[in-house]
């Protein structure tokens, strides 16, 4: 039987750094339980100070292994670290196999590290709306750095840019030429491109292609030029690891850039705008479906679309006119 503490009590324990309170609150937010909104209103004043680092890239590129090393770097600086690792939910069963924690074990005994696995629960952009709230809970817990590692299904995993201050995209040699690298989408969101497994054949070529693609773009005077950092994140001997220190230094450099140029204000503004949009979308959908509930209208609309007597756009327009017209 899960113990019932009041929401307020759990939040005050969270603010004192209690990991169990954090764990329970994250579940509550993830499951969209009834006091979800109340929790976030209580937590909100204690957020906004952490550095949020996004890590994305294709499966198997080495995101979790790199995250494990970066946790170590932040711990050396005495910073408490929260980590959210997102893996996909099965579109068939709704279940998930969350296997990132297995690579995040160097710090499994360290109380200054809080790691939470999340299933994407059907959101295609790689991050679910709950991720915003989970990050906030980790901030309120007292973590000075929050790392968000998200499943990179490929070219279109750009959600992470709306959440992170500094965005790492992890690639490996042999993932395509400069034409791939020039495509819109994932490569564009990178503040830092990590070319991991840089001991494999083709590293030099990949490095040239990535750098070539980056320099083909235009950048405003004084703007951040994305960097390519080659790394080797897995080695039999620690001295064979490569680029981890350089990566940590480049992240610090980007943070300095954000603060010095006030670019961080823009990042924060974009983040809140994006989040508001997501919440509006979800809440409006709930209001509308709730309004239709019990009237038989929803089924009627859906069937009329299936039978091609109607189309989705006309239905949405009709419903919006019915439910939202008084607001106009």
């Amino acid at each position, binding site marked *: 039987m899960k113990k019932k503490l009041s929401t307020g009590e759990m939040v005050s324990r969270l603010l004192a750094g209690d990991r169990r309170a954090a764990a329970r609150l994250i579940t509550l937010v993830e*499951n*969209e339980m009834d006091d979800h909104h109340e929790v976030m209103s209580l937590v909100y004043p204690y957020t906004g100070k952490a550095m949020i680092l996004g890590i994305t890239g294709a499966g198997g590129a080495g995101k979790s292994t790199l995250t494990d090393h970066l946790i170590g770097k932040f711990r050396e600086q005495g910073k408490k670290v929260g980590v959210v690792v997102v893996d996909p939910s099965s579109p068939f*069963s709704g279940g998930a*196999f969350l296997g990132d*924690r297995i690579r995040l074990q160097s710090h499994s005994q360290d109380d200054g590290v809080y790691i*939470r696995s999340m299933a994407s629960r059907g959101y295609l952009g790689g991050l679910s709306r709950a991720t915003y709230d989970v990050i906030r809970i980790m901030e309120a817990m007292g973590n000075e750095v929050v790392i968000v590692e998200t499943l990179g299904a490929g070219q279109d995993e750009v959600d992470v840019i709306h959440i992170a201050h500094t965005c790492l995209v992890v690639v490996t040699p042999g993932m395509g030429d400069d034409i791939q690298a020039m495509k819109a989408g994932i490569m564009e969101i990178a503040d830092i491109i990590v070319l991991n497994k840089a001991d494999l054949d083709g590293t030099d070529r990949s490095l040239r292609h990535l750098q070539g693609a980056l320099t083909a773009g235009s950048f405003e005077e004084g703007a951040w030029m994305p960097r390519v950092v080659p790394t080797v994140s897995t080695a039999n001997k620690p001295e064979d690891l490569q680029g981890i220190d350089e990566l940590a230094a480049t992240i610090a450099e980007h943070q300095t850039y954000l603060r010095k140029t006030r670019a961080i204000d823009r990042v924060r503004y974009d983040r809140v705008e994006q989040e508001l949009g997501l919440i509006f979308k979800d809440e409006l959908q709930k209001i509308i479906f709730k309004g239709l509930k019990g009237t038989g209208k929803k089924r009627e609309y859906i069937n009329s679309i299936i039978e091609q007597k109607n189309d989705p756009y006309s239905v949405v327009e009709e419903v919006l006119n019915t439910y939202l017209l008084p607001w106009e």
Partner: protein
Amino acid sequence: MATIKKIKVLVTKVGLDGHDRGAKVVSSLLKEAGMEVIYLGMFQRPESIVKAAIDEDVDVIGLSYLSGEHLIFTPKVVEEMRKNNVDDVLLIAGGTFPAEDIPAMEEMGIDKVFRAGSLTESIVDYINDHVEE
């Protein structure tokens, strides 16, 4: 509000037993049954298992044993759970055990033991029936 509760299961192996096929097969089956499985892998210490269970707020811990270490490590995991007041998590074990060890394992604090050859449904049903809302 629509609540979307999913059952969360931590699947892992404690000690030096290097056979993880069973743990992986059961993890896949639980995933297919709609549960969220956090796979912690092999060679875990009881402290790491319990800490991960707390951080991940799991409903169930599943221990897999295939090398006869079940009577040695089970009490250590149970003790670590007790020390950390983890009293609301279902503890199950699966693998190869002599039938006569099962009462001892249950005595130690395992809620349910599934021997090799158990039907998938029996594991899934047991978890569904015993995880409280």
